[in-house]
C-alpha cells in the first residue's frame, strides 16, 4: 500500500515543496510537489539524496554527552532525560549567575525559526543569531539603506526578464529549483545574461556575456556602469523623478569613475562597459541586476550591493514583470497572518550583546552579527554570554578560522548542538541532541510570500527511525523543564498548527489536498503609480540618513584591493548544484557525485610556479597548510585560486567525507575579525594563500 505525503524538503535552506511516497513504512520516492506548477516534479540532486540521508547510519542517532575534553571525540550515549537534565542544570546555574541573556542560539534562519526565537524569548535572552553574517547581511543592509526594505523585500521575475546581470551570483550552481527553472526559461527564450566572476562558474556557460573580472573590483565596475548610465541619460527618468531622492548627490560622486578608469581596475574593456550600459538601457525596465545572495565576500561588498540596488532603481524595474516585485503577504490577499509562537511571551528588555540595533543602529537586531558574538564570548563585554545552542548551523564550517573559533568557544560553560548530521561543530559540543530528519519530523507552519501568497506545511512521512526528536518537541520539552511551560503548552504538532492558524480562518485539513494553501488565485500587483517605500520620505533614498548618522557615507570612494605577490593568491570558494554548503558532503549519493575538492588555479600562473595539471600542491597560510590537487585552467583570474566549500572534514564518524580534500575556512586565518563595517558581513574572500608544488 503506497501513500503520498505533501511536505517541504529539508536538504538545504531553500525548502522546496515535495511529495513523498511511503510503502509499508518505508520512504520509497521523493519528487517535487507538482501541485505547485513552478516546481513540477523536479527536484535537485540534494533533495533526491534525502532518502539516502534518512537511511544512512552515519548520522546522529541518539543523544550524547562528551566523555572527555571538548573536541576529544569521546562520547557517551545518554537518554533524552539525561541530556535534558545536563542542559537544564547547567542553564539554571548560568541564569542564576548571569541572567537569561547569557544564553545565545544560532541557526540558519528561515521560516521555521519562530519557535527557536520564542524559546530564547521565554528564557529572557535577546541573543538570537543566524548564519547571515556569512551570507546575505551586506545585501540586506544595502537594501535597507536604499529602499528601507530588507533583502527579501523585493523578489525577481526572472522568467520575463530581457537582461539578467549577475555579479558572481552563480544562478545554476547555487540554485533554488523554482528560481533556476524560471531563469533557464528566460535563457531559452533568448534573454541576455551578463555573468561577472573571476572564475567561469557554470553560470558563465549560460550567459551571453562573460567578464572575468579582477577579484575584489566589482565595486569599480559598478561605479563605472552608474557613471555611464547617468552621464548618457540611459536611466528611466520618469521612474527616478517620481520615486527617487539623492540623484544629484550620486551624480556628483560618480563623475570621476569613468569606464576607462574602471578598465584599469577590473580588466574589463571600457568600450564593452559602455556597450553593456546601452543594452540594459534599451531593455529596461525588464532588466534585473541581482543584488547578491551570498555577498559576504569583500570589505566593500556592502557598497557593491548598494550600487546594484541603485542600478535597479535607475532601470525603473520595480513592481513590473521581468523586473523586481514586492512579494505579497497574506494581508495583501485579505487574510491575517500566522500567529507568532512568541506573541504571548513578555518582551525581552535586555539589549543584544553584539550591539546590533542599539550600539550599531544600522544593523538589524533580528539575527544580529554572529562574529560580534564571538567577541562578546571572548571579552565578556558588554556582559558575559556563557551558553550557546547551535541549531542545524555549523559555525566551525561556515565561519572562518575554526582554530580561533575554538579558542573563543572554549570560554563557554555550555555548548549544545542540535542537528541531524555530524556537523563540524558537533565535534566541539558538550551535549548533542539529535533531530529527526525532515522526512521524520513535522515542522511549524510557514508563510509563503510572493505574487500569490499563502502558507505551507512540512509533514512527516514516517516515524523516526532512531532515537531522535523533532525540533518542536525539543524546544517545548526544554522550555517546560526550565519552568517556561506556560508559553509552551503544546502536546502535539496539531496544537502548534492550530495556534498558528487561529487568526487566518484556515484549518489544518486545508493543507491535506496540496500541502499548501494559496490565498490568491491570481498574481497580486500593486498600482505602480502609487508605490510606497518604508523610508522616511516614502521614496527610494540614494542618500541614507540612518547610515550617515553613524559615520557610514552613502557613497564611499573606491579603494583598490590588495594585489597578491608572486606565488600568492586570493582564496575564493563556492558551490556546486549538488552539494549543500557542507551538510551533504558525507551523504552516500552526494559523496559519489563529488567526493573531494580540488584547487582551480590559472594555467599561466601555475606554470610559472612549476605546477602542472593534476599535480598535488601545498597550500599555506599563516601556519595552516594542506595538500590538494591542482586543476589548471584559463577560466580563473591569475590573482585567485578557488576551491569548493564543505570538504576537509574532521569528524571520523563521517567515513565518506573524513579528511577528503581541504577546508577553505581553515585557510581563512584571522578573517573572524575582517568584516564589512558598513554592511556587517564577514569578508570571506579577503585571505591569501601561498601555492607551491607539494
Amino acid at each position, binding site marked *: 500500500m503506497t501513500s503520498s505525503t505533501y511536505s517541504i524538503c529539508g536538504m538545504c535552506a531553500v525548502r522546496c515543496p515535495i511529495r513523498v511516497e511511503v510503502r509499508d513504512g518505508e520512504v520509497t520516492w521523493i519528487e517535487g510537489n507538482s501541485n505547485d506548477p513552478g516546481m513540477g516534479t523536479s527536484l535537485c*540532486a540534494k533533495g533526491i539524496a534525502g532518502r539516502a540521508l534518512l537511511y544512512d547510519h552515519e548520522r546522529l542517532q541518539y543523544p550524547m554527552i562528551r566523555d572527555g575534553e571538548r573536541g576529544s571525540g569521546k562520547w557517551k550515549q545518554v537518554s533524552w532525560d539525561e541530556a535534558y537534565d545536563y542542559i537544564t542544570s547547567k542553564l539554571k546555574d548560568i541564569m542564576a549567575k548571569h541572567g537569561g541573556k547569557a544564553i545565545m542560539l544560532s541557526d540558519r534562519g528561515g521560516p521555521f525559526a519562530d519557535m527557536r526565537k520564542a524559546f530564547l524569548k521565554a528564557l529572557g535572552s535577546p541573543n538570537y543569531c543566524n548564519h547571515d553574517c556569512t551570507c546575505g547581511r551586506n545585501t540586506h543592509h544595502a537594501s535597507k539603506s536604499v529602499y528601507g526594505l530588507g533583502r527579501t523585500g523585493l523578489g525577481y521575475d526572472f522568467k520575463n526578464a530581457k537582461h539578467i546581470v549577475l555579479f558572481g551570483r552563480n544562478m545554476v550552481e547555487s540554485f533554488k529549483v523554482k528560481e533556476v527553472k524560471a531563469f533557464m526559461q528566460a535563457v531559452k527564450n533568448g534573454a541576455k545574461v551578463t555573468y561577472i566572476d573571476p572564475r567561469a562558474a557554470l553560470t558563465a556557460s549560460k*550567459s551571453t556575456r562573460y567578464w572575468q573580472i579582477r577579484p575584489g573590483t566589482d565595486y569599480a565596475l559598478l561605479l563605472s556602469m552608474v557613471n555611464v548610465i547617468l552621464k548618457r541619460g540611459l536611466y528611466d527618468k520618469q521612474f527616478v523623478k517620481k520615486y527617487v531622492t539623492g540623484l544629484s548627490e550620486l551624480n556628483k560622486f560618480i563623475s570621476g569613475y569613468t569606464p576607462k578608469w574602471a578598465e584599469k581596475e577590473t580588466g574589463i574593456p571600457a568600450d564593452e562597459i559602455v556597450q553593456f550600459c546601452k543594452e540594459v538601457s534599451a531593455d529596461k525596465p525588464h532588466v534585473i541586476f541581482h543584488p547578491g545572495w551570498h555577498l559576504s565576500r569583500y570589505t566593500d561588498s556592502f557598497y557593491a550591493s548598494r550600487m546594484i540596488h541603485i542600478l535597479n532603481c535607475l532601470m525603473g524595474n520595480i513592481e513590473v514583470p521581468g523586473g523586481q516585485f514586492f512579494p505579497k503577504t497574506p494581508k495583501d490577499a485579505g487574510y491575517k497572518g500566522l500567529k507568532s509562537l512568541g506573541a504571548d511571551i513578555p518582551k525581552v528588555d535586555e539589549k543584544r550583546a553584539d550591539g546590533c540595533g542599539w550600539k550599531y543602529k544600522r544593523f538589524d537586531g533580528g539575527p544580529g552579527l554572529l562574529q560580534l558574538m564571538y567577541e562578546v564570548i571572548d571579552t565578556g563585554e558588554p556582559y558575559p554570554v556563557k551558553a550557546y545552542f547551535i541549531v542545524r548551523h555549523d559555525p566551525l564550517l561556515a565561519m572562518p578560522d575554526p582554530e580561533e573559533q575554538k579558542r573563543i568557544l572554549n570560554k563557554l560553560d555550555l555548548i549544545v548542538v542540535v542537528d541531524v548530521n555530524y556537523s563540524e561543530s558537533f565535534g566541539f559540543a558538550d551535549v548533542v541532541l539529535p533531530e529527526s530528519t525532515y522526512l521524520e519530523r513535522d515542522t511549524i507552519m510557514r508563510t509563503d510570500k510572493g505574487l500569490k501568497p499563502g502558507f505551507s506545511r512540512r509533514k512527516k512521512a514516517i516515524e523516526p527511525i532512531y532515537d531522535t526528536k523533532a525540533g518542536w518537541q525539543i524546544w517545548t520539552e526544554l522550555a517546560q523543564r526550565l519552568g517556561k511551560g506556560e508559553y509552551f503548552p503544546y502536546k502535539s504538532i496539531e496544537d502548534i498548527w492550530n495556534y498558528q492558524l487561529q487568526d487566518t480562518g484556515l484549518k489544518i485539513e486545508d493543507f491535506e489536498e496540496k500541502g499548501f494553501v494559496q490565498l490568491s488565485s491570481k498574481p497580486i500587483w500593486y498600482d505602480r503609480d502609487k508605490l510606497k517605500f518604508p523610508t522616511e520620505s516614502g521614496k527610494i533614498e540614494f542618500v541614507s540618513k540612518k547610515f550617515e548618522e553613524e559615520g557610514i557615507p552613502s557613497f564611499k570612494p573606491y579603494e583598490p584591493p590588495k594585489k597578491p605577490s608572486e606565488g600568492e593568491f586570493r582564496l575564493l570558494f563556492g558551490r556546486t548544484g549538488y552539494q549543500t554548503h557542507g551538510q551533504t558532503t558525507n551523504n552516500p549519493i552526494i559523496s*559519489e557525485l563529488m567526493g573531494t575538492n580540488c584547487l582551480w588555479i590559472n594555467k599561466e600562473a601555475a606554470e610559472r610556479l612549476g605546477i602542472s595539471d593534476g599535480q598535488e600542491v601545498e597550500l599555506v597560510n599563516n601556519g595552516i597548510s594542506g595538500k590538494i590537487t591542482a586543476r589548471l585552467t584559463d577560466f580563473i583570474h591569475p590573482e585567485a585560486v578557488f576551491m569548493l566549500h564543505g570538504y576537509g572534514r574532521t569528524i571520523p564518524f563521517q567515513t565518506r567525507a573524513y579528511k577528503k580534500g581541504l577546508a577553505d575556512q581553515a585557510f581563512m586565518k584571522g578573517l573572524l575579525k575582517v568584516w564589512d563595517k558598513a554592511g556587517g558581513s564577514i569578508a570571506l574572500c579577503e585571505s591569501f594563500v601561498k601555492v607551491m608544488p607539494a
Partner: protein
Amino acid sequence: MSNYFVEQDLTLCIGCLACEAACKDKNSVPEGAFYCKMIPVGPRMIGNIPVVQHVYMACFHCERPWCVDACPTGAMQRRPEDGIVFVEEDLCVGCKACMKACPWGVPQWNADTGKVGKCDLCKDRVDQGLSPACVTKCTTGALKFVTPGEASLKRRKEFAEEMVKGA
C-alpha cells in the same frame, strides 16, 4: 532503438546531476556505478563564452544490441514489446562480456554482487505510464521521455521556428 527516447535539451541542462542522483536513488545503483552519467565537455570558448556542455549518457537501447549478442547466459535481454534492454540479474554470471561488447561503455559493474547492471529506462515506472526517474526529477526539464517520432517532430518544429524568426 526502443520505442522510447530520452531527449536532452543542452540549452536547458545546467549540469546539476539531479539525473545521476535520481537514478542512483531509484535503482539502488551500487557505489562506483552510474546507469546514467553526465559527461562534462569543456569549458571551451564558443564566441566569447566559456561553455561547458553536460552530455547525458545512459543507454541507447539499440535495435540490435551488442551487449545482448555478447551475453552467453541470456541475462542481457531486449523486451520484445518495446525494445528496452535490461539485465535479468539471476542469470548474470559476471563474465563482463557485455561490458567489452558495448561500444559506449553502458553496462556497469556491481562490485557487491559481482554482476552487471544497466539503465532499463526504469521499466517498472514505464509500465505504470510514468517517466524514468532521471526525466521525472530533472531540475530544469532538460530531459524529456519521448518516442523517436516525437523527438524528431520537436526538433523540426524548433528548427522551423528558428528559420522563420531569422527571415
